[in-house]
């Protein structure tokens, strides 16, 4: 009986969590203009999405979204990795302070970040557009990259950088040949995370995209839905994005799990050797 309740509780929870997403996916395979009407199975929305059946504005929004996500993720991966290396070299107390400061933007509500950046750009007299959106996305993505690179640095033997210098490598060579390969997995995870965060973002984008009609998917969908009825093709697009993000998440988690397992095996090995 107890088992029955706990199982049904879990099922209920999962249904609540995933029903909205699943409904979108299901209704992407029907032609009805109104969400909620099932008019028989059809892949028409997908065909239409890719054969120009949607407005140019939507196409632009998609292009913008991926361009912004790619640039923002690339730049924040570079900034975040460099920052993580710097933070890792700090002495204990300073490191704790900087880590705390790094976590504030993560905990800060997006809407606040958006308003603050908006005010900042306005007060500095910067015309808002692509550049400001990208800068804003870099700003909120970088702390996540720091968080995903940091564990790699912490578990790295601190002497290997010195060993490289000792063997004649300049600091740059040591960084490229020794440190970079060590933190690369963290950087890749950080990049993927930043990329999905950027695609996903609405609150920050809406405050920083200016008045020249720059739109990303999220702002386009928002405007579209408010104008009365969602463009049907968006159901198909949402489903595609959902699948892509899901795949990326699976990759990130799989990598993290594999790393954890490898670290564990190493620890076990070392223990075995020292016992021998």
């Amino acid at each position, binding site marked *: 009986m107890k088992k029955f309740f706990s199982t049904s509780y879990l099922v209920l929870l999962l249904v609540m969590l995933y029903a909205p997403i699943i409904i979108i996916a299901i209704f992407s395979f029907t032609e009805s203009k109104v969400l909620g009407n099932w008019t028989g199975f059809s892949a028409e929305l997908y065909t239409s999405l890719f054969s120009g059946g949607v407005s140019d504005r939507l196409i632009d929004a998609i292009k913008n979204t991926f361009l912004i996500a790619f640039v923002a993720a690339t730049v924040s991966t570079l900034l975040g990795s460099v920052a993580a290396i710097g933070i890792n070299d700090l002495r204990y107390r300073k490191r704790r302070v900087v880590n705390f400061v790094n976590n504030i933007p993560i905990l800060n509500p997006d809407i606040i970040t958006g308003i603050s950046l908006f005010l900042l750009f306005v007060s500095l007299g910067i015309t808002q557009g692509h550049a400001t959106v990208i800068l804003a996305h870099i700003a909120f993505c970088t702390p996540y990259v720091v968080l995903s690179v940091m564990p790699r640095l912490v578990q790295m*033997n601190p*002497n*290997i950088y*010195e*060993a*490289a*210098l*000792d*063997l*004649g*490598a*300049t*600091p740059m*060579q*040591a960084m490229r*040949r*020794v440190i970079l*390969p*060590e933190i690369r997995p963290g950087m890749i995870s950080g990049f993927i995370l930043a990329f999905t965060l950027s695609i996903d973002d609405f609150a920050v984008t809406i405050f920083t995209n200016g008045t020249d009609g720059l739109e990303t998917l999220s702002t386009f969908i928002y405007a579209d839905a408010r104008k009365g009825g969602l463009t049907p093709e968006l159901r198909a697009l949402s489903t595609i994005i959902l699948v892509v993000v899901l795949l990326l998440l699976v990759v990130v988690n799989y990598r993290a799990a594999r790393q954890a397992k490898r670290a564990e095996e*190493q620890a076990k*090995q*070392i223990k075995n*050797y*020292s016992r*021998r």
Partner: protein
Amino acid sequence: MTKTNHIIEICNITKSFPDKVVLDDVSLNVKQGEFLTILGPSGCGKTTLLRLIAGFNSASSGKILIDGKDMTSVPPHQRPVNTVFQRYALFPNYNVYDNIAFGLNLKKVDKKEIEVRVKRALKMVGMTDYEHRDVQSLSGGQQQRVAIARAIVNRPQVLLLDEPLAALDLKMRKDMQMELKEMHRTLGITFVYVTHDQEEALTLSDTIVVMNEGVIQQVGTPTDIYNEPCNAFVADFIGESNILNATMIRDGVVEFMGREFECVDTGFGENQPVDVVVRPEDVYIIRNTEAAMFRGVVRSCTFKGVHYEMFVETLDGYEIQIQDYNCFEPGTEVGMMIKPADIHVMRKERTENRVEGKLVDATHVEILGETFECAPVEDIESGAEVDVCFGFSDVELTDDPDDGISWGTIRFILYKGDRYHLTIRTDDDEDVFVDTRDVWEDLDEVGIKIAPSALRVVRRNNQ
């Protein structure tokens, strides 16, 4: 010619971190081709000294010359030295071959030559055929061999080794010690080796540098250091020893354990307080109590393989450690003798505590971060900077740090036959030296009390 040259000259190096002085005006010369070991307890500054030679840290002041050239501010990759780290520090993303070839690749050495040299280095450390192994799959000992090969393949003028064997088990450590010694002989380059293991230092070195608290205590050959320790710290740190309070009566005569002994040391003056060291194997123990210099009763006897280790309590209440091939049962009354040449006299570093403080009023003085009551002081005005002296035995220690007026942590314990000589580090990094018969443990936190009458307040003599 090169035999007498100094490959490394360390001149007046001081290294301080914001909260601590790690090296205090250290000067040291390393001869070309020698095996020099820096020996000391953890936290004595030995690793910092090695890191300064390698260039990983920079000194607060002072100069380092390698091969006659000033290297004080030269970055590590331009120094003619290579380092072997305690935790191997192999590059996990390279295999064994690429790890060893790392330095040669950077120097753009011809690929063919790299291969020859890597193979030779691997052979030297007994790791032939391991080229293509992943370094993570190797045992600790094998990883350290690869790390050594990676360093020596570059033919450095000096090989720096930072406790390279500390992470290995005893058997492996012994094997590697012999191999290192052999390697030093074959390569003919200078080795600077850091360790806290005194046995390892005695086994391997041509020269030993004993360090404590950021200061070099003694430099000498292993036999010098063992037979002629220059102070109680060295005597206690290297090997087993009986260290006792003594008085130098005059040249050749020293008094300890309540009687006078003939000795060979001279030049200490007359009636001077000194320390004497007698190694346990240098005390002769005999059944015939008539012929003995002094007598006692055996308290314990432990078999140690080659010899027996005995603790004997003398009739005057001193405990002496003795090593002998013969076993004397506990309870046996025995006689003991010490040859004049086996008594080693050392100058005392201090005969009482002297700390800096401030006179609060006529009967109170501020020392060790707290206010202590003292005997009335008449000729010094309140608020003056003063020195306060008190004897080793005048300090009373309490179990609970809160029971004392000030408190500290026990950092060093020296047994002196009938009492313990403790070094207590207070909260503000001041040292208080205490003689006590009570047994305390290292790192115990204790309260410090001093009787008002024991505190002697003197005006600070400004230099």
